[in-house]
């Protein structure tokens, strides 16, 4: 059963009362919230996600709630609770759904150390995975969203989970975070894409999330082998250009883009070395999405 099997009333009731339990990739989230934006975002962007069964272990207990003080009425706010703990300051209430997305990423990045976790978009095509680490503003999520509407399976737009034993990538397909101009760019690029609640005036500007394809959600248990590490960079009016990178520099740059490389100590080094062994590495600059997608479609896996 997926979330889409619930009526809107059932969804809102579960979110407000006992909590909505659903599977995202390898994790089960129990979400409590009385915010209509959260219910709307879950209904529109998470429709294809499996509901968890009563016997499933819950990895993250998340609550997106109103502060129990005067801020419920004056400039309302939203708070994130993780197991009874409140790790962040409140945000304006109209950022409730964005707060759920950010906070659930935080849960994974800070607790799931069975994986080497990279701050990177990750997609798969024909069994081959491309990992795209990128600093904020590099155009990583925009390119990821575009590729996911042109035949690439979305594994994640934000968190790449590298299995430490066999250097495969475990999918964590979640809505793709789009910021500012990227929202309209992707709406124009993929007119049938579904965009969730829009949050304005966040610390990242205007933020909205794009629904992942049903296929990527349904295939969330299919791990895949990484073949390329590509560092994307959006440069206005530039030609799409893929430039080979040496692996030692790439190693250091991927390590800088990891959430838990230093937490894993020697295991982080070994896992990242394993990743470098099976991947070709590139810098990539682009301005036009069609050109970028064409180049990605022509990537050849490294010879083993």
């Amino acid at each position: 059963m997926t979330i889409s099997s619930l009526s809107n009333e059932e969804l809102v009731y579960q979110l407000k009362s006992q909590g909505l339990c659903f599977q995202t990739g390898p994790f089960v989230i129990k979400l409590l919230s009385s915010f209509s934006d959260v219910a709307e975002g879950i209904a529109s962007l998470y429709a294809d996600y499996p509901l968890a069964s009563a016997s499933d272990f819950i990895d993250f207990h998340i609550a997106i709630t109103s502060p129990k003080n005067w801020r419920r009425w004056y400039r309302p706010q939203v708070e994130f609770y993780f197991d009874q703990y409140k790790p962040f300051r409140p945000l304006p209430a109209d950022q409730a759904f964005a707060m759920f997305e950010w906070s659930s990423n935080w849960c994974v990045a800070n607790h799931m150390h069975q994986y080497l976790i990279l701050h990177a978009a990750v997609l798969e095509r024909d069994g081959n995975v491309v990992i795209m680490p990128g600093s904020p503003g590099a155009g990583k999520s925009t390119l990821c969203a575009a590729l996911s509407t042109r035949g690439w399976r979305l594994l994640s737009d934000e968190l790449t989970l590298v299995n430490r034993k066999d250097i495969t990538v475990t999918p964590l397909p979640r809505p793709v975070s789009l910021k500012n101009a990227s929202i309209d760019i992707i709406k124009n690029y993929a007119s049938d894409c579904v965009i969730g609640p829009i949050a304005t005036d966040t610390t990242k500007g205007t933020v909205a999330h794009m629904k992942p394809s049903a296929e990527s959600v349904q295939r969330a248990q299919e791990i895949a082998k990484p073949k390329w590490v590509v560092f994307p960079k959006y440069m206005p009016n530039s030609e799409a250009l893929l430039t080979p990178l040496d692996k030692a520099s790439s190693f250091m740059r991927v390590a800088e883009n990891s959430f838990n490389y230093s937490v894993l100590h020697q295991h982080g080094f070994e896992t990242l070395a394993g990743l470098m062994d099976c991947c070709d590495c590139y810098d990539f600059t682009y301005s036009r999405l069609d050109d970028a997608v064409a180049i990605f479609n022509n990537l050849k896996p490294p010879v083993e």
Partner: protein
Amino acid sequence: MIWSIRSNVRLNSRQYGDEFVVYCIPSGDTHHFDPLSMAILDALLDSQKNTQEIIQFVADRLNYYVDDELQEHSVQVLNELQRKKIVKRNI
């Protein structure tokens, strides 16, 4: 001057072309080293050496000859490795 790898330091390295990535225990730091730096570390893996012995080892390893430039660079690298708490100067 005698140099050695610090007694509590263990190194795990990977070679990519002629570049190296080295993980350092116990600091947990990861370093990107060029062939000269790696040759100096290799020189000290077995035993402590004085500066001239290290430079000769490096020249042999890199198929180079000992000149002022190599001496100067080697001393710079040794000081940098000391700053990174990988090697130490023994007095």
